[in-house]
């Protein structure tokens, strides 16, 4: 480093030594690793403390138990909670039901989102495209609760959906079906957007080439478009699947007597004050999601996010 030019001293002793800030920066300049460490420490701290820390705390507290009378947490590690979950059939039933709901929502959303996103990206006139994307995104600005309660009214006895199916009591009513319908509605934009982004990246010339080679629309769709946007679909499915797996409010509003994992977690915190059992139950969706993410990673979906 060249010597720092120092202006003529204004007084005795002043600016004789480099200022502390300068000293620090030149020191950091020479120690690249420390510099990098300092640069990354804040975000890393955030990641470790707020994110992984919370997850670790969840796992640790799932090993605790609760004093049944005073409700105080007994910090004495044991596997009682996990044993209770494994030994009680109802938890297995609810976990399977939750995964099935999340899977159904994901499939329904994918089926609706594919043609919609294709229309947005390839068919709609470019000047309309922006407006249509806004239209898809607008529901995300409305409150989740407002949308769920609106669906409660729509699904009510004698409500619009009943009319559609031929009179009071003929519609789906409140229950598991209603839950799947409402969740599919709520998370649809999260499926459309990644597919739309994937299709935008797909060059039009590929479609033209396919047509030039004699492929009809369906053949082009199946052999050219679909293979290229499968990772986008899986990227969208991460949102729809994880959001559905963790949901407990929609099911409370339109689910009738159905309960999902989220309800069990909520009931054990809210009604029973049993934080450790809730934490143990919450590890189920965490495990399911880890398995799911590992699976979709192999399909390259994570690069599409």
């Amino acid at each position, binding site marked *: 480093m060249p010597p720092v030019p120092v202006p003529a001293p204004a007084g005795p002793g002043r600016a004789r030594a480099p200022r502390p800030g300068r000293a620090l920066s030149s020191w950091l300049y020479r120690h690249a690793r420390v510099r990098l460490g300092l640069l990354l420490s804040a975000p890393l701290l955030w990641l470790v403390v707020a994110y992984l820390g919370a997850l670790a705390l969840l796992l640790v507290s799932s090993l605790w138990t609760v004093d*049944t009378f005073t409700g105080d947490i007994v910090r004495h590690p044991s596997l009682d909670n996990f044993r209770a979950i494994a030994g009680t059939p109802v938890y297995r039933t609810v976990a399977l039901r939750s995964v099935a709901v999340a899977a159904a929502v994901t499939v329904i959303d994918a089926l609706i989102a594919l043609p919609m996103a294709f229309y947005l990206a390839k068919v709609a006139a470019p000047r309309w495209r922006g407006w249509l994307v806004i239209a898809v995104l607008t529901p995300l600005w409305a409150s989740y609760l407002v949308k769920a309660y609106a669906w409660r009214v729509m699904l009510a006895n004698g409500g619009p959906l009943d009319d559609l199916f031929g009179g009071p009591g003929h519609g789906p009513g409140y229950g598991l079906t209603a839950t799947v319908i409402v969740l599919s509605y709520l998370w649809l934009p999260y499926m459309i957007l990644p597919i739309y982004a994937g299709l935008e990246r797909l060059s039009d010339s590929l479609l033209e080439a396919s047509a030039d080679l004699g492929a009809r629309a369906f053949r082009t769709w199946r052999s050219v478009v679909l293979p290229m946007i499968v990772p986008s679909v899986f990227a969208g499915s991460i949102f729809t699947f994880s959001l559905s797996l963790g949901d407990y409010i929609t099911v409370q509003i339109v689910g009738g*007597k159905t309960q999902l994992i989220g309800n069990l977690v909520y009931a054990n915190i809210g009604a*029973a004050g049993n934080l450790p059992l809730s934490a143990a139950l919450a590890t189920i969706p965490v495990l399911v999601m880890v398995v799911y993410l590992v699976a979709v990673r192999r399909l390259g979906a994570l690069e599409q996010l």
Partner: protein
Amino acid sequence: MGTYRRVMAVAAAGVLALAGCGGSGTGGGSAPGTGVKPPKVDRLAAIGAGEGEVDIVSWAGYVENGTDDPKVDWVTPFTRATGCKVNNKVGGTSDEMVTLMKTGDYDLVSASGDATLRLIYGGNVAPVNTDLVPNYADIQSFLKLKGWNSVDGVPYGIPHGWGANLLMWRTDKVTPAPTSWGVVFEANSPYKGRITAYDSPIYLADAALYLMKTKPDLKITNPYALDDTQFQAAVDLLKAQNKNIGEYWSDYTKEVQAFKAGNSVVGTTWQVITNTIGTDAPVQAILPSEGATGWSDTWMVAAKAKHPNCAYKWLDWIVSPEVNAQVAEYFGEAPANARACDHTADKAFCGTYHAAEAGYAAKIWYWTTPTAQCLDGRTGVTCKDYAAWTKAWTEIKG
């Protein structure tokens, strides 16, 4: 009233027994929480000058300062009269309230019976010096010194208001008019898929109450004190009922909407829900022949209250006839203060809510925290505690 008194005497004896074995308990093997005397906490001896503020944990609708509805405000006049600023935190459930009180940041709590004993035995609340609360004299005598607001004749709080979990039905859909809870528990109900029930583990007590009257062999004497056999019978009854349930409710607006639309035609309700539906749908609510479960809320002072003087000023304020009447009418429950009935805007209010009828109140089994130590005073048996109730409730819903 006679039976009720007797039962409460038995319950009190149970608490005595519970306190009595405090010294001899070895702790080994016994469930935590049993055989314990409440920690010694001193009550306030005299009210001094206010501290300028008070921190409260309350049910929604109990502490209103006009922000929800400009006409509903009893906090501003309190602050004006006493100089105590009110900081309110609404608790969503009894358990949340217990958790909040454990933080030590609050001076007062409006606790229901399924929270009070936990607070008392957890040492989180102090006995109340009722001499410092002049309006305590006018509280209905059938609410004073009960199992959920006192221990060994020492009051731990000021009764605030109470209500019953009633049976409601759509008069155009349910005929003949039911008089018994049997209508929601029958296996081959014609109302399959249209029955509703309260979504909380405490609803097990409703089933136990029904079994108490219909299956005397089970010898249930208190729906909150169930041994293994009795508990299993209640669980089985509710599992059978689950097949006929349309939905469970905990949010009262949800129940209002379900009855208006006809998704639910018969089930548990609160008086305030029936009143809200009003004439929008033909509904009727009664206290069935078996009696009912219900709630009775109590204002309690924290053991380590930072603002005890303001807290006591609030106790007296909130159960004063005028304010108690306002709260009761806004929330939809029977006021605890006998003289509150003279101050309600709707002169028929206390009649609707049976506020002064000790006989009606006697038919209600108030929410109480089930504990391993049987609340009905039985010894030599272990009862199912609230954690077991919660687990069972999950299994009932399936």
